C-alpha cells in the first residue's frame, strides 16, 4: 500500500501558527528564566574559564623612552626591554603579574631623581599599550613629555595574553600537583567505602525482612541535614589531639587522609543510598524467580542477578560520591591538617593569596570529574527508565533468620556511626571545656563572642534558606512548567532544558569562584548585588536548580497532557489553569522542592564561602571560621543549630505534606 505517493505534497513553506497571548507569555517567561540561568550560571562560568586562560605580564617591548640632558636635548630612543637587558634590572619571573599589575617607569632609570632637571618622554609602540601618569590612564604611540617630578608617578600596566601558561605553571608546581594526587586518592578510597557500605545498607532494607527499617531509613538521611564539615569536628573530638578515644588509632593521626575519608563516608552516604536504593527497587522480581527456579545458589544469584541489575545504580552512585568528595572543601579544611587537596587549594589560592587566575585553573580541573559524573548519571537515568517501563514487579523478600540478622547488624553498625558522630557534636557543643571541665552549659552557644558572625550569621542563614526556598521553588517550578507544557518552540525549550541541567555539573566551589569573577567586576551592571543577600540567594538557587527542576518535571509529566488544550478550547488563559489545577495537583512535589532548597541552603558552604560579606555571614560558614579560629566547641554548637533547624524544617514539611494529602484525599483516591 506504499503506492499512494502519486500526488506529492505541494512545495512551499510550513504555515506558522499565530501565537496567542498565552504563547507569548509562556515563551517570555521561559526566556526570562533562561536569562536568569545565563546570568547566574553560564556567564560566570564563561568568565571564569576565560580567566583561567589569561595571564598578565609587563610587555617591556611595548614601551619606549627618551631622556634629555639638563639642557633639554633628548637622546636616543630605547625600549624598556633594551634598558632592562642592558642593566639587568628585572628577571622574567618578576614580569609576571595579575590583571591589576603596575610597574614604576623609574625602575628602568637607576640614576633617577625627581629633583633633577632631566626630562623624560614615554610612548607605546602599539595603540593598546597602556600606562598611568598619576591616576590617568594613557594609551597609544604619542610621545608624552614629562618632567622628573611627574615621571616619578608613571607606571606601566600589565597586558593580558591568552594561553595555557596558567595550566602549565600549575602542573609544574610540585606542591599543587601533589594535591591532585591527594584528591584522587581520597576520592577513590571514600567512593569505594561509601558505595560498599551504602549498597549493604540498601540491600538489607530492600531484600531482607529485618525490623526497624523505617528508623534506619530516617537515620541514614540525617547527614544531609548538616554541613559536610561537621563530621570533621566530631572526629577531632573523638580522635584529635585531646580526643576521647585517641588511643584507638595507635598513634595514627586523624588529621589527614584518615579523617577526610571517614568524614566523607559520613556526608556522602545518604546520596549513595538514595541512588542505590532506587536501582535495587527497580530490579525485577521475575529475574529472581527465574534464578530461583534454576536452583542457582544465593551467592550465584547475587552475582548474576542482583549486581548486574543494580550496576547502573552502583556506577552512578560511585560517580556522584567521587564528585562530592573531590569538590568538597569544608571537611579537608577542618580535618585535613597538612594534607593538601584540590578544593582547599582553590580556597587558599583565592582567599589566601588572591591568585584568582590559579584558582580558576583549579576550578576548571575540578569541573572534569563533575562533568563526567553528570554525563554518567544522565545515561544511567535513561537506562533505568527503560528498565522501569519493562513492567518490573516489586520484590517481596521472604524471611530468613540468619540473613535478616546479618542485615540488622550491618544497618545497626552504620546507624551507630551516624548517630555517634551527631551525638559527639552535640556533646562537644554542650560541654564547658573539653576535656578539663565536663559540666554541661550553653556557653558554646554564645556565638556573639566568637568570630564568624555570631547569632547574626544564624539569622542570615535562616533568611537565606527561606528566600531560597520561596523564590527558588517559584522559579524552578515555573520554568519546568513552561518547558514541559509549551507547544512548539523546540529550540528554545532545548536551550532551556540544557541550562536547567547544567548546575548539576558544576561544583559549588567552582560556582562561587565564578561569581567572584563575574559579579565582583565594577564594569558589570550587576556589580551592586555583590556582597548582598541577593547574590547568596541567586547563587544558592542556581547551585541546587537541577534536582528541583527534575522533581518538577516528573510531577508535571504525570499530569494529563491535554489539560492545556482543554483550557485553550474553553478560552481560559493558561495561568488560570496553572493556579487552579497544575499547582494544586503538584503541591506535594512543590513542597519537596522547597524543603530540598531550604535544607541545602542551610548546609551549603562551598559556593557561598567566596561571596558572603561581613553583613551576610552564614551559619555554615561560621562553623568553618570558628573552627579555623580554634573555637571548635562553638563550631560544633553552630553545626548542631543547623541540624536542629533542618530537622524542624523537615517536620514542618512532613506535617504540611500530610495536611495536603489529607485535604486532597477526596480527589486522589477513588471514593
Amino acid at each position, binding site marked *: 500500500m506504499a503506492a*499512494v505517493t502519486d*500526488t506529492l505534497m*505541494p512545495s512551499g513553506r510550513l504555515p506558522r*501558527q499565530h501565537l496567542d497571548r498565552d504563547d507569548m507569555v509562556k515563551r517570555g517567561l521561559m526566556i526570562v528564566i533562561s536569562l536568569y540561568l545565563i546570568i547566574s550560571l553560564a556567564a560566570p562560568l564563561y568568565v571564569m574559564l576565560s580567566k583561567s586562560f589569561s595571564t598578565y605580564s609587563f610587555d617591556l617591548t611595548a614601551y619606549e623612552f627618551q631622556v634629555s640632558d639638563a639642557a633639554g636635548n633628548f637622546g636616543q630612543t630605547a625600549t624598556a626591554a633594551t634598558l632592562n637587558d642592558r642593566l639587568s634590572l628585572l628577571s622574567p619571573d618578576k614580569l609576571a603579574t595579575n590583571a591589576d599589575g603596575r610597574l614604576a617607569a623609574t625602575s628602568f632609570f637607576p640614576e633617577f631623581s625627581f629633583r633633577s632637571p632631566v626630562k623624560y618622554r614615554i610612548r607605546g609602540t602599539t595603540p593598546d599599550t597602556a600606562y598611568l601618569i598619576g591616576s590617568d590612564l594613557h594609551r597609544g604611540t604619542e610621545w608624552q613629555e614629562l618632567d622628573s617630578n611627574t615621571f616619578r608617578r608613571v607606571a606601566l600596566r600589565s597586558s593580558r595574553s591568552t594561553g595555557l601558561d596558567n595550566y602549565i605553571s600549575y602542573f609544574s608546581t610540585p606542591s599543587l600537583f601533589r594535591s591532585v594526587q591527594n584528591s584522587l586518592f581520597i576520592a577513590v578510597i571514600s567512593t569505594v567505602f561509601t558505595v560498599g557500605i551504602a549498597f549493604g545498607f540498601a540491600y538489607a532494607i530492600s531484600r531482607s525482612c529485618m525490623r526497624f527499617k523505617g528508623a534506619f531509613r530516617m537515620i541514614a538521611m540525617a547527614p544531609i541535614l548538616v554541613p559536610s564539615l561537621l563530621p570533621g569536628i566530631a572526629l577531632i573530638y573523638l580522635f584529635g589531639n585531646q580526643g576521647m578515644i585517641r588511643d584507638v588509632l595507635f598513634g595514627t593521626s586523624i588529621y589527614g587522609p584518615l579523617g577526610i575519608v571517614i568524614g566523607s563516608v559520613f556526608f556522602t552516604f545518604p546520596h549513595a543510598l538514595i541512588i542505590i536504593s532506587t536501582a535495587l527497587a527497580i530490579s525485577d522480581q521475575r529475574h529472581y524467580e527465574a534464578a530461583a527456579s534454576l536452583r542457582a545458589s544465593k551467592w550465584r544469584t547475587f552475582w548474576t542477578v542482583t549486581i548486574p541489575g543494580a550496576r547502573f545504580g552502583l556506577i552512578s552512585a560511585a560517580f556522584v560520591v567521587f564528585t562530592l568528595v573531590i569538590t568538597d572543601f569544608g571537611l579537608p579544611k577542618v580535618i585535613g591538617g597538612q594534607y593538601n587537596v584540590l578544593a582547599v587549594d582553590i580556597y587558599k589560592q583565592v582567599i589566601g593569596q588572591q591568585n584568582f587566575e590559579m584558582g580558576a585553573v583549579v576550578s576548571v580541573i575540578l569541573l572534569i570529574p563533575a562533568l563526567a559524573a553528570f554525563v554518567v548519571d544522565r545515561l544511567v537515568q535513561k537506562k533505568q527508565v527503560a528498565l522501569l517501563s519493562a513492567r518490573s514487579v516489586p520484590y517481596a523478600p521472604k524471611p530468613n533468620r540468619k540473613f535478616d540478622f546479618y542485615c540488622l547488624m550491618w544497618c545497626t553498625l552504620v546507624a551507630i556511626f551516624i548517630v555517634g558522630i551527631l551525638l559527639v557534636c552535640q556533646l562537644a557543643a554542650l560541654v564547658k571545656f573539653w576535656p578539663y571541665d565536663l559540666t554541661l552549659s550553653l556557653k558554646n552557644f554564645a556565638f556573639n563572642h566568637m568570630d564568624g558572625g555570631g547569632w547574626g550569621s544564624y539569622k542570615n542563614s535562616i533568611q537565606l534558606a527561606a528566600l531560597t526556598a520561596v523564590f527558588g521553588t517559584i522559579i524552578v517550578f515555573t520554568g519546568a512548567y513552561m518547558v514541559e507544557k509549551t507547544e512548539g518552540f523546540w529550540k528554545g525549550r532545548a536551550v532551556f532544558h540544557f541550562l536547567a541541567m547544567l548546575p548539576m555539573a558544576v561544583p559549588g566551589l567552582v560556582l562561587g569562584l565564578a561569581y567572584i569573577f563575574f559579579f565582583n567586576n565594577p564594569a558589570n551592571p550587576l556589580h551592586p548585588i555583590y556582597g548582598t543577600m541577593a547574590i547568596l540567594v541567586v547563587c544558592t538557587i542556581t547551585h541546587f536548580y537541577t534536582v528541583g527542576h527534575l522533581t518538577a518535571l516528573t510531577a508535571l509529566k504525570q499530569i494529563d497532557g491535554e489539560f492545556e488544550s482543554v483550557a*485553550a478550547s*474553553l478560552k*481560559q488563559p493558561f495561568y488560570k489553569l496553572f493556579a487552579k*489545577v497544575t499547582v494544586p495537583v503538584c503541591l506535594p512535589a512543590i513542597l519537596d522542592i522547597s524543603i530540598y532548597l531550604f535544607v541545602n541552603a542551610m548546609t551549603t558552604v562551598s559556593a557561598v564561602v567566596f561571596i558572603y560579606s561581613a553583613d551576610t555571614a552564614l551559619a555554615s560558614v561560621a562553623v568553618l571560621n570558628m573552627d579555623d579560629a580554634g573555637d571548635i566547641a562553638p563550631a560544633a554548637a553552630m553545626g548542631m543549630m543547623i541540624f536542629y533547624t533542618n530537622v524542624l524544617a523537615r517536620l514542618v514539611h512532613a506535617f504540611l505534606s500530610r495536611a495536603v494529602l489529607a485535604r486532597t484525599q477526596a480527589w*486522589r483516591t477513588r471514593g
Partner: protein
Amino acid sequence: MRHETLARSTATPTKVLPMAPSGNPTYLQISNLWKAFGDFHALKDVSLDINEGEFVCFLGPSGCGKTTLLRAVAGLDLQSRGMIRQGGKDISTLPPSKRDYGIVFQSYALFPNLTIARNIAFGLENTKRPKAEIEARVKELLALVGLPDQANKYPSQLSGGQQQRIALARAIAISPGLLLLDEPLSALDAKVRVHLRHEIKELQRKLGVTTIMVTHDQEEALSMADRIVVMNHGVIEQVGTPTEIYRHPRTLFVADFIGETNKLDARATDSNCVAFGKSELRCALHRFETDQSVIATIRPEDVIPHEAGSKSSDTGNLIDVVIGEMEFLGSFWRTRLRGEKLGDEVLIADFSINATRRLGLAEGGSLTVELPADRLLVFPRGGGHGSSH
C-alpha cells in the same frame, strides 16, 4: 490505474461527495490538507466539507490519521499544507484559543482536583457572568447529561461513563460552534458504550451543534453519524451516509472494512458481468476491460436462499451449492457454502432463522442461492475504486 482513480477522487472532492442529509450550508471546509511528520505523511491532500449541524464520524483503522485531522481542525497540531475554514472564516493558522470549538479527549482530561461543578464551570468563569447564572448553567448542563446530583463529587469518584458525560458537558458549556470528540467511548465497557452512543447522538440533535467524532469502531460510526468519512493511510476513501457507505462502498477497502464481505477472485467478462469459479454472473455496472482480474464482493446477508417455485427476479444469478459448517450467531446462521460452480472459493452467507427452518437447511444439504446482481460489486485487485451504482 489505481493511482489515477485515487488522484481523481481527491482532486475533485466536491463532485464525489454526496449531499449531506440536512442540506444545510457548509460550516467547516477542509481543503487539500497535508500533514508531514518528518518524511511520513499522516494526511495526504485531504479535502472535506461538513455542513452546519451535521454529525460526522471519521472512521478508519488505527494510525490512519483520524486524530491528526481532528487536531488540525482544533489547531493543536498545525497542518503542513492546506486550508481550513470554519463558518466562512479562514482559521488555518489560528491558535486553539482563537478557534471556536469544544473538545473531548479519549482520556477525558477532567481536572482531578476540581469538583464536577467546577470542572463544568471552568470555561464559564471569566466571562463576567454573575455567579448565579454560572451555577444555573452548570445545573442545566448536569441535567442535560443526566447527572443532576453529582455536582459536588470529584472526577475520581465517578464511573468512566459518568466522567465521559462530564467532559462532554464541560465542552458544550460555552456553546461552541463545533464539537470535537476523539474516540470518546473507546475507554468504556461495551454496555455503557452502546448506551452513551444514543445519549451523545440525542444531545447533539438537541443542541444542533456541528460535531466531528473520531472512532475506529464501525458500529459506532454507522449508528451515530449523519455522514461517515472513511479514512485509510492518510487519505479519505469515501464520504457518505451510513447506508451509502454500507450499501455502495466505493473501494475494496471500504467494502472490507465496513461490515463483512465475501471477496472472490474473479475476472471481468463484460461491463456488467463477472466470472469466478465455474460461473459467470451478472453484477453491478463496472468499467473493467474484459478478462481483467478483479475482486468481486458480496455481503453474507445479500446471499439469498432460492426457494423452489418462487419467482426470482434474477434467475441468471443462481448457483447450486453444498452447505458446509453452520454457526449459530443469535439472529442468524453464518453458513459456509461450497460447490462445483464456486471453484475453490468458499462463499459465506447469513441465513435468517426463519429461512433456515423453512428450507430445512442443514450441514451437508444442498441448496441454490441467488447473488443479486446489484449486490455483487467488482473492484480492482489490490484496492482502489470499483464498480458502483
